[in-house]
């Protein structure tokens, strides 16, 4: 590792000339600024995705009511939401939350911000590429926002965009309007192009992260001294690098189907209303295979970094070494490896050969094992600790508590015969939200509260943060837990009017309860936004190491280091988790020599 010392020296702070505002804060090459840029855009899109979610919830609880505020928009439908509009809402909700919120938050904001700081590097390996990876998102933002205003509205065939409803098109030259659904016209094309840009951005990011972590660690920062956050980011980046090309291919194929009349996903002999496509020969299942080959690894892209951050936060505030550090790393690697051979569990009922389903089931159920091991390790970490209930710690504990539910519900769906009944019901929706909202997003909140002092040099208000946690924790259970029950009772996902089916109508009261909880949950997030913005300007000044953490980002000279991060190259002497039992001091920063016999 010593050869890297040389590289790290010439990137430190004071070697850089002063930059103008534009180069410093807009087209910045500093990983910390880029991270914060990702952070702000993700928060804004979180707002958009949240509003779409609330529209969905309103429709689900009060299917025949006029929609408040925007009822004029639905004048020709008596002020009520149209079915197509509803389909657009949940499609865009999921697309925005997955591709514009969770992934940019985790890999964009936290990946960028933490990686160089926590491994003791001056910046990313390729700062210009890093800048590009942010700015290539802007075409995506523009395309996706614009898509709401085109003919037929934004995409409406689900975030999974299954052909043929998403992909069928009139013959080339007859416009983009879709014969199958209004939202599958120009809106779908923009959706595809926008996701392509997001993919390119993620790819640039992951190449950068992998290179940086392999090549730019400070002297002494061996692989097994890296904090879990970095391990998680590393493995996530590898997942992205291998899975994304497949999504890219799928998106391009569907774009071609939609625009120049290819038929990759369109078989022979179909008819839509009284129009029949002249050519076919394609395969709708092909899309599902390609899509899930990316999107299953993507669900881990959306959780592993959160798991890493939660591990670090738990150890810090339990003042205990992380339990089973190596087992944690192997579990993440195991999840990532198995994650590539389980995609078919989304396709058990799709018409794929059922024998294949059996194989996918075996792999899927086994993937619960590393998840379980991680949970046990988190519990082991807080055992005999000295738990400090700061806001980030509460979010981390909330993560552990609710990830248990999300992981366990996965087993039901992985069991092929049980999945026959619960596939495409609200049980799935419950699962998704326990792992993505109640786990990933809680981890993200934890990370924001935790690294805010490093980002802005201020502390977020802890009491307000706790109020935010309290409401979020309680209300997200009120919103998402009953979804298990309505799902078991047979409520299908993706329907705008639950009074249509014989089994579903009686679930209306429970739906109302969930929707009211969701509205309150949405309101509670305003507390966070207020705290976040207020603290940037008026928060208490942060000290250099407010949480008494061990990792390198807290050893920089200034609380918010300049471009280049470290004044002198940090030299690492021990692992990141030497908390507790150090005489009168209960931590040992990685730059200090450990006083206990090294464990790793």
């Amino acid at each position, binding site marked *: 590792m010593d050869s890297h010392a040389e590289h790290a020296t010439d990137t430190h702070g004071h070697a850089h000339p002063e930059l103008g505002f534009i180069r410093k804060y807009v087209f910045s090459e500093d990983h910390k600024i880029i991270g914060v840029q990702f952070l702000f855009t993700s928060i804004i899109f979180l707002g958009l995705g949240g509003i779409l979610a609330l529209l969905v919830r309103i429709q689900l609880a009060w299917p025949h009511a006029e929609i408040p505020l925007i009822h004029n928009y639905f004048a020709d439908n008596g002020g009520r939401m149209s079915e197509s509009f509803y389909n657009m809402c949940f499609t865009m909700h999921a697309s925005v939350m997955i591709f514009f919120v969770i992934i940019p938050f985790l890999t964009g904001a936290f990946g960028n911000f933490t990686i160089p700081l926590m491994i003791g590097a001056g910046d990313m390996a390729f700062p210009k590429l890093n800048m590009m990876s942010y700015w290539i998102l802007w075409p995506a933002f523009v395309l996706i926002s614009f898509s709401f205003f085109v003919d037929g509205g934004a995409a409406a065939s689900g975030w999974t965009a299954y052909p043929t409803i998403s992909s069928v098109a009139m013959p080339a030259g007859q416009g983009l309007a879709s014969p*199958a659904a209004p939202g599958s016209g120009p809106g779908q094309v923009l959706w595809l192009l926008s996701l392509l840009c997001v993919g390119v951005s993620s790819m640039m990011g992951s190449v950068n992260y992998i290179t940086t972590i392999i090549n730019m660690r400070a002297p002494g920062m061996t692989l097994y001294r890296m904090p879990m956050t970095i391990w998680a980011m590393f493995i996530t980046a590898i997942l992205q690098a291998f899975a994304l090309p497949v999504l890219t291919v799928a998106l391009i194929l569907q774009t071609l189907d939609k625009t120049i009349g290819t038929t990759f996903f369109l078989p022979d002999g179909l008819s839509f209303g009284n129009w029949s496509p002249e050519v076919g020969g394609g395969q709708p299942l092909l899309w599902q295979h390609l899509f899930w080959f990316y999107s299953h690894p993507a669900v881990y892209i959306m959780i592993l970094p959160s798991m890493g951050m939660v591990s670090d936060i738990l150890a810090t505030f339990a003042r205990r070494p992380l339990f089973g550090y190596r087992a944690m790393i192997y579990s993440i690697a195991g999840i990532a490896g198995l994650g590539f051979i389980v995609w078919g569990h989304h396709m058990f009922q799709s018409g794929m050969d059922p024998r294949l389903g059996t194989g996918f089931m*075996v792999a899927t159920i086994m993937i619960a*094992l590393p998840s379980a091991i991680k949970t046990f390790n988190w519990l082991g970490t807080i055992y005999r600790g000295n738990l400090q209930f700061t806001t980030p710690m509460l979010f981390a504990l909330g993560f552990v508590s609710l990830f248990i539910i999300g992981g366990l519900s996965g087993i039901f769906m992985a069991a092929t015969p049980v999945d026959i009944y619960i596939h495409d019901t609200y049980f799935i929706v419950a699962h998704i939200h326990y792992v993505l909202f109640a786990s990933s997003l809680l981890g993200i909140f934890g990370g924001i509260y935790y690294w805010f002092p490093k980002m802005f040099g201020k502390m977020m208000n802890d009491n307000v943060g706790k109020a935010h946690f309290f409401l979020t924790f309680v209300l997200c259970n009120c919103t998402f837990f009953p979804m298990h029950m309505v799902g078991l009772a047979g409520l299908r996902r993706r329907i705008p009017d639950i009074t249509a089916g014989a089994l579903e109508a009686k679930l209306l009261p429970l739906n109302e309860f969930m929707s009211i909880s969701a509205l309150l949950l949405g309101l509670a997030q305003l507390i966070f936004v207020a705290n976040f913005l207020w603290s940037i300007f008026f928060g208490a000044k942060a000290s250099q190491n407010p949480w008494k953490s061990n990792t390198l980002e807290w050893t920089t000279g200034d609380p918010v280091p300049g471009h280049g991060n470290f004044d002198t190259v940090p030299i690492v002497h021990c692992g990141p988790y030497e908390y507790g039992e150090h005489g009168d001091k209960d931590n040992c920063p990685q730059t200090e020599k450990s006083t206990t016999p090294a464990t790793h």
Partner: protein
Amino acid sequence: MGNKGWSVLFGVTMLACAIGFGISPLMGWWMPEGVSTHAGAVDGLFYLILVVTTIAFVITEVILVVFMWRYAETPDGKPPIAANAGFPSFLKPFERFLNDQHKVELAWTIVPSIVLVVIVFAQVNTWADIKYATRNRNDATAANKARSQVAVSARQFEWRMRYPSVSRFKGWMANPAATRKDFESFGKIPHFNDVHVVNELHIWKDHPVVVHLTTRDVIHSFNLPNFRVKQDALPGKMIPVWFTPTKVNCKWDESRQRYIDGYDPAGKKEKDKEYTWDIACAELCGWGHYRMIGRVFVHKDQAEFLDWLQKTEAEGTRRN
């Protein structure tokens, strides 16, 4: 909130979730009664996983809450437990084991692995029985002996059912061996005198039916929650689906001159929700997806089914 208060919050919230789940069956927020032969196995596996996951849930959440309570930082900043504190008395017998981190880790890897492997193996046969049977022509399972067949073609936003004509159907019943070829090609090859019906699946009790499922436009999903049946209809493909109904829900209504469903034969109640069995499309297929709902009519025996088929065929002929 005091430090220990947080463990209470976690405990209460998780307890509330557990209680909510516990009372769901009483509130009707639960799986409807199963009315096919698949239901027993599918529900059994569901309950197996429910038991295992409940145990895992309780153990982990209790440990989390207890630790959060026990190890909360004290207000005066003293460590909540002495550095050399031993185990509580009820754990004393396991002290040696618990102090050996390696053994503990081994245990919590091996025990869940075994449980998970058991869960996996429990699924395999049920899945094969439900989904492979009709694909294997030489298989002597119930599905392949079925003399009840329906071809279902989905489209935005309805289910079109095709039944054999009365004479063809009688032929199958009278001489299965001689009509085998015609019987087997029913799904693929429509006849000019087939009987067509929209959104009504007619079958009879205790007799397996094979549905030949296709779609002519987008993906739909043939979802019969009461029967624990779900299969996507895939454009460009015909997929066989089989099941055996175990309860009756229809009768001849003299005044309306047609068969009605939603009928509870025991209580002689009409329009009973419990006996209304939807074919509710479960794969997003466009604006009308939510109301793409057909109905299953389970007749009490073959004779009643034949009666329905005759009446329906006659009606069709009259219409022509």
